[in-house]
C-alpha cells in the first residue's frame, strides 16, 4: 500500500526519485478517496511548476480535484496513456498510473516529504 522506495506529500502525491528525474503520481489512498477516475488533465512537457502548484486535475464521477506538485521542477515527460485510460490511476496508482516526470529544481525539497512509515501514520490518523 505504501511502497518503501517512494516519498509522499501530505496532499497524497508520491515521488520516485531516479537519478535526476522524479516520477510523480497520486497515492492509493487518494485514488480510493476520489473513486472512479474518468478524466485526467495533464500538463505539457516543458512546463515548470513550483512546490504545491496544481499541475494536473483528476476528475472522478463525483468531483474534480487538483493534483499538487510535491517538488519544484520542469516537466520532462507526461503519461499520455492516462488520456484514454484514466482508470489506470485507480488500478495501478504507483505503476502504470504515474502522471508526470519532473526534473527537480531543488533537491532539498525531497527531505520535506514523508517516508513510507510517516505517510502510513498520516493515513491511519485520517482514517481514525
Amino acid at each position, binding site marked *: 500500500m505504501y511502497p518503501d522506495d517512494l516519498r509522499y506529500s501530505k496532499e497524497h502525491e508520491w515521488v520516485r526519485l531516479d537519478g535526476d528525474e522524479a516520477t510523480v503520481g497520486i497515492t492509493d489512498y487518494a485514488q480510493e478517496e476520489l*473513486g*472512479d477516475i*474518468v*478524466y485526467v488533465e495533464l500538463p505539457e512537457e516543458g512546463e515548470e511548476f513550483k512546490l504545491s502548484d496544481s499541475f494536473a*486535475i483528476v*476528475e472522478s*464521477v*463525483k468531483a*474534480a480535484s487538483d493534483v499538487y506538485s510535491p517538488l519544484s521542477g520542469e516537466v520532462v515527460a507526461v503519461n499520455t496513456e492516462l488520456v484514454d485510460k484514466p482508470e489506470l490511476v485507480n488500478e495501478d496508482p504507483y505503476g502504470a498510473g504515474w502522471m508526470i516526470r519532473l526534473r527537480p529544481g531543488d533537491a532539498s525539497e525531497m527531505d520535506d516529504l514523508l517516508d513510507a512509515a510517516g505517510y502510513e501514520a498520516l493515513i491511519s490518523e485520517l482514517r481514525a
Partner: protein
Amino acid sequence: MTTLSKTPLHQVHVDLGARMVDFAGWHMPIQYAGLIEEHQVVRTEAGVFDVSHMGEFTVSGVEAFEFLQFALTNNVAKVRKGRAQYTLMCSESGGVIDDAVLYRPDDYMLVVNAANVETDWEWLSSLATDFDVQLTNRSEEYALLAAQGPKAEALLNPLCDLDLTRLRRWRIRAATLDGRGVLMARTGYTGEDGFEVFTASYDAVRVWGALTAVGFTPVGLGARNTLRLEAGMPLHGQDISPEISSLEAGLSGVVDMNKGDFVGRSALQAAAGSRVLRGLWMVDRAIPREHCLVRTEAGPGMVTSGTYSPTLKVGIAMALLPPAVEIGDLVSVDIRGRQREALVVELPFYNRFSKPDAGDS
C-alpha cells in the same frame, strides 16, 4: 455536531465496507465497490439501494381524494387502487416544494424526498386543515428498498407470493416477500425496470439479506444519481426547486391544468416561462457540474445537475436555458474557467421505456 439519522440498514452498510456520507441529514452509503461498477450492474443486471431515508405519508379520510387533488399537480383521479403516479407539490407561486410519487396500495401513500420530509409535512398539514382527512407521517415505520435492473423481476419472483410478471409499471400491491409482508411497487428512479419494496423497518435487514442472497448487488447513492441523471429524472433541490417552476422543468405532463383548482394553478397558468430545462451532451472531454454557467446565443443559462455518464461515457448535464435555444444547438459551458462545447439534446439521455413515464399510461 448534529447527529445523523440512520436507516435500519445502517450497520449492514458499514459491515459491507460502504463509504458513508451525510446525505440530507442521514448517514448513507454513497458507494460500496465503486460507482461505475454499481451503475453498470443496475443497467445490465440487478442492484438494490437502501432508500429508507425517504418519507412516507399516508392520507385517509372521506376527503382524502379532494385534499390530494388540491395539494398535488397531477390528476389524482387517475390513481385508482393499486396504482402509482409521479406528481409535484407546488407553492402558490408555482415553484416546486417537492416532487413525489403518490401510491395507492389501499389508502393513499405519498413518498417524498428525505431532505424535504419536514417541509412537506408542515406544508401538507397546513393545507389539510380545510379538509376532513387524516395525514400520518409513517417515515419511521417503513424501510424502502429499491430493487432495480433488467434482472430484477426474474430474481424477485421466486421470493414473492405475487406473480411479478403480471405487476405492471406504476402498479403497487401488498405481497409477501421471503415470508415478510411488504408492498411491492413497480417504480424506480433509475430509468431501468425494477421494483420498490416497502417493508416494516424491523424487517428491512431480513429483506435486504434475501435480495442480496438471490443476486442483487448493493448500490449506493452515487450511482443512484448518475442513473437518474441519464434517465432525465429531476432531483429536487437542483433541477427543480421552489425557485424553478414545474413548467420550466419540462414537467407540464404531470401538471393537469384541467382537473380543477390546485395550489399553484393560477401562477402556472399565467407563467410563460423564461427558461427551459434541457439536456447537455458534452462535445469536449469535460464534466459539467451544478451551477456551471452556460453561454448561448440567446443568453445565459445554468447547469442544474451534471455528471459523467457511465453508460454514454461523456459528460452530461441538465441545464436551465433560454427558451429560444433549440435542440441541436451548440452552447458553451464554463467549466473551471474554460469554455467547453456542448450539444443541446432532448431529455432523457437514456430510457429503457419507449413511452413517457409518469404512471398515466
